[in-house]
């Protein structure tokens, strides 16, 4: 009995000091939420982004913080568990009182936290390429929309390589399915016949690619130049490329262009069978600019490991964080509504030597780069768009979404305005 009482007292004291400390410090700090999985399946990709955020915040603090206050990162672990993402988001916003959240990787996790951010009117910066068809007042999409990755990649294959037959291979979930729907509609609009498009879905972590690769080989032997557009998710890629190599398909016969294979994914595998295959991103570690060299140097010294790499979602966080900092400075406050209004039109440098601007639809402008995989696990840029491409929330190639536009500027403030009916459906 006595013991229990003692524990209670300890707990009470602990909580009280905690609360007091928080109150005492609340005046001098701005809290930034970091919502990335540190355990479970997605830890492989998301841990790096958490470290990136910590580095950016540390750097900003060295520069004197923000609005004269110190930034403090609040890191939580949603453990690759989609419903847990929503709970942790609520915890960050309501309990920890963060000013903005940087996080999520998979589309499911974003869809899971979306209602929380809208309900509590907070801000989420989402750094990963995604399938589009979404625009929220509270979310800033700093990764690529399909027109900033998939469509330019297909154009490259069509015009530069002369591809006539297409395999759209993807993992069976929302991003590949939507992207492939857009790509199919786009290819059909360019006069590609239905029999020249092969669509294939595989489960998460698929490892037995024998018959699918044999099918691709057969499909590619029909006399027309064939390419694979792959939305295959991270893990399943290694056995896929291995099987391609073993069955004698080289990047010269049938090139594969991937949207989910980056430096980080390549660092864990034997890259021999992948050399010459392509990836489309908005940033590569091999981009030769001073600002990128500086970023890489900072990253390597922060993480204290010379072998680590940088990748596209890291650049997205770099851009997103700098945009948020600038918007807060412009608004003079971290209040959600004020920052939302201030951030549209904000322009910050990206790492490939250009600038990224926040568009009224909460997407940003990006260059599109096509890289070939080299034997050291890096990419060599072989093609890039002439200028910047603005992210399009609603695809122009899908029947349901081509009439929709998104513009969050006051007083329009609508994420899905139908230009045909002249109505704003849904969120206002």
């Amino acid at each position, binding site marked *: 009995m006595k013991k229990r009482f003692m524990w209670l007292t300890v707990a009470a004291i602990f909580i009280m000091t905690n609360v007091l400390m928080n109150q005492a410090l609340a005046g001098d700090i701005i809290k930034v939420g970091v919502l990335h999985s540190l355990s479970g399946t997605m830890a492989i990709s998301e841990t790096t982004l958490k470290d990136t955020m910590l580095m950016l915040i540390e750097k900003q603090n060295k520069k004197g913080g923000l609005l004269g206050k110190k930034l403090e990162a609040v890191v939580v672990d949603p453990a690759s568990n989609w419903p847990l993402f929503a709970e942790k988001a609520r915890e960050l916003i309501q309990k920890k009182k963060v000013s903005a959240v940087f996080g999520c990787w998979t589309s499911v996790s974003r869809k899971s936290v979306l209602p929380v951010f809208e309900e509590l009117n907070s801000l989420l910066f989402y750094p990963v390429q995604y399938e589009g068809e979404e625009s929220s007042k509270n979310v800033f999409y700093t990764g690529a929309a399909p027109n900033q990755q998939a469509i330019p990649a297909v154009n490259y294959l069509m015009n530069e390589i002369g591809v006539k037959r297409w395999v759209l291979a993807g993992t069976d979930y929302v991003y590949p399915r939507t992207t492939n729907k857009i790509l199919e509609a786009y290819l059909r609009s360019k006069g590609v016949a239905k029999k020249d498009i092969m669509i294939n879905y595989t489960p998460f972590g698929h490892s037995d690619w024998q018959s699918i690769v044999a099918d691709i080989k057969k499909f590619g032997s029909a*006399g027309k130049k064939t390419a694979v557009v792959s939305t295959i998710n991270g893990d399943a890629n290694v056995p896929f490329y291995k099987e391609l190599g073993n069955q004698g398909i080289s990047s010269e016969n049938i090139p594969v262009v991937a949207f989910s294979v980056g430096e980080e994914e390549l660092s864990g595998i034997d890259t021999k069978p992948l050399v010459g295959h392509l990836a489309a991103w908005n940033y590569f570690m091999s981009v030769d600019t001073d600002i990128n060299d500086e970023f890489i140097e900072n990253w390597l010294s922060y993480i204290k490991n010379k072998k680590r790499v940088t990748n596209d979602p890291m650049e997205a966080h770099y851009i997103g964080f700098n945009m948020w900092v600038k918007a807060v400075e412009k608004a003079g406050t971290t209040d959600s509504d004020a920052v939302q209004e201030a951030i549209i039109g904000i322009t910050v440098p990206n790492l490939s030597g250009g600038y990224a601007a926040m568009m009224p639809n909460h997407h940003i402008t990006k260059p599109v780069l096509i890289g070939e995989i080299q034997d050291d696990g890096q990419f060599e840029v072989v093609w890039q768009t002439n200028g910047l491409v603005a992210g399009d929330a609603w695809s122009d190639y899908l029947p349901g979404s081509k009439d929709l536009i998104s513009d969050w500027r006051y007083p329009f403030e609508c994420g899905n305005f139908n230009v045909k009916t002249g109505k704003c459906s849904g969120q206002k």
Partner: protein
Amino acid sequence: MNSLYGTRIFTQIIALISGLIFLGGVFTSTVYAKPENSTFTNSLKLLAQINYKKKEAGIDMLAASNDPRSIDVVKALIGGKLYYVKKNKVVVFANKKEAIYEITSVLTGENLGPIKKRKLKKINTNNRIRTKIKLILNRLNLNHPEPQVRLKAANIILEDLNEGNKDILIAKLATETNVEVRKVLVIASDIADLTSSEPEKQLKALGNLSGCLIPVVYKTLTQLIETEKNKSVKNEIRAVLAGIETRRSIFAFFETLFFGLSQGSIFVLAAIGLAITFGVIGVINMAHGELIMIGAYTTFVIQLLMPNSIGLSLFLAVPAAFIVSGCIGIIIERTVIRFLYGRPLETLLATFGISLVLQQAVRTIFSPLNQSVKTPEWMSGSIMINEVFSLTMNRVVILIFLLIVFSGLLLVMKKTSIGLRVRAVSQNRNMARAMGVHAASIDALTFGLGSGIAGVAGVALSQLTNVGPNLGQAYIIDSFMVVVFGGVGNLWGTLIAGLSLGTANKFIEPFAGPVLAKILILVFIIIFIQKRPMGLFPQKGRAAVA
């Protein structure tokens, strides 16, 4: 747009061919070129450009430069040894010696001494350039003194036969003496005859090509049948095509069978350890997948320790993985499962918890990133049976590996005293104890054996898939499926169940897709279990009933 593209290709081909003739001449008779060959100098300038179109033009110029050094430049370019100095854009051959590069000027052949990497820029190639260079090299190789090299070159050109290179192969027919190479060249000439305007020639070529499985023949014929006017020729094409298609479908059947057996062999490898623990001690071990993963990580660690002999490290990894996973298995048995015998639900939960612990432990020790396990040379590529049917090497090796592991396990169970005791305990625990078998230590040993086999499976899987903390999860469901279907505790049942499920999966997959195929197999097993709850080969004896 289209015609423009056409003319561009045409001029490129002309340029290439003319360049080749020069290069070919250079290669065979080593004409001495003047040091100030301006085409050569200019082509180097183009190669040092960032723009790939300019690099391509550089290659064309190089081919046309009539310079003996071109061949070395092309070879260095494709081997990634051609660099330029950032400061003055001098193109050099570079040899890496640790962090320092030893460079020699391409133009003068002068040694420019060691230089730091940052001052150099590698001249990169893309797919188009590589294809182009390989074509050039292959065309040169047609005149190589070694017949094997000529054969390879001829085959590669045949694979990519077009208007531009058809004539080269046919012209080579006049001088070629090697029988094997001639065969390839004759096929090329027959394919050329297919589009001839004389029906007799066409029919003769068709007769020669009948039953030929080379993809380019099939491709040409399918295109030809659309355009051919002559009725008798068209009928003949149809007949030849039908013949080829039948042969192709026969080999396609064998291919699917091989795919199925190889997937089945993975199933069996993953499941067989589970069959032992599940069968003998009746424990549902949810951490089985993680023991497989630990086997794969053992392979990774051993490869780290001996980075220069990848093949040997794989052989060493087999016993090492067996020991590591086996020991972890015994520890799990002694510390957790032992206290939960006869309480299947609790065991299930406890082992599931252990699986999470092991996963997170690996994440903390090795990082959540996947680790790179290298494949030895002899396990990549494939054995070609004929043009449409080849067996991938890694799958063949794993299939053989399974048979070795399986027969080894059978030997242990049937011929050793430990095996005898294990079987005794599994058939009737109390009777075995009455006969003086120490059941508790047999339990631990059996669990260790099952876990060890899981580790061995991990070595095989490290060659096929990602080595990461989630490796095990992907295989646990399949393993349970196989064990339940085959009949609990029956090694032969596991083998047959695994192989047949794998094969069935691969035969369903082509028309149902991989997702639906998996669902169909699961549905089948559920129905099957309704009819035969003990699986394919139920355990006999009194224990089975109890």
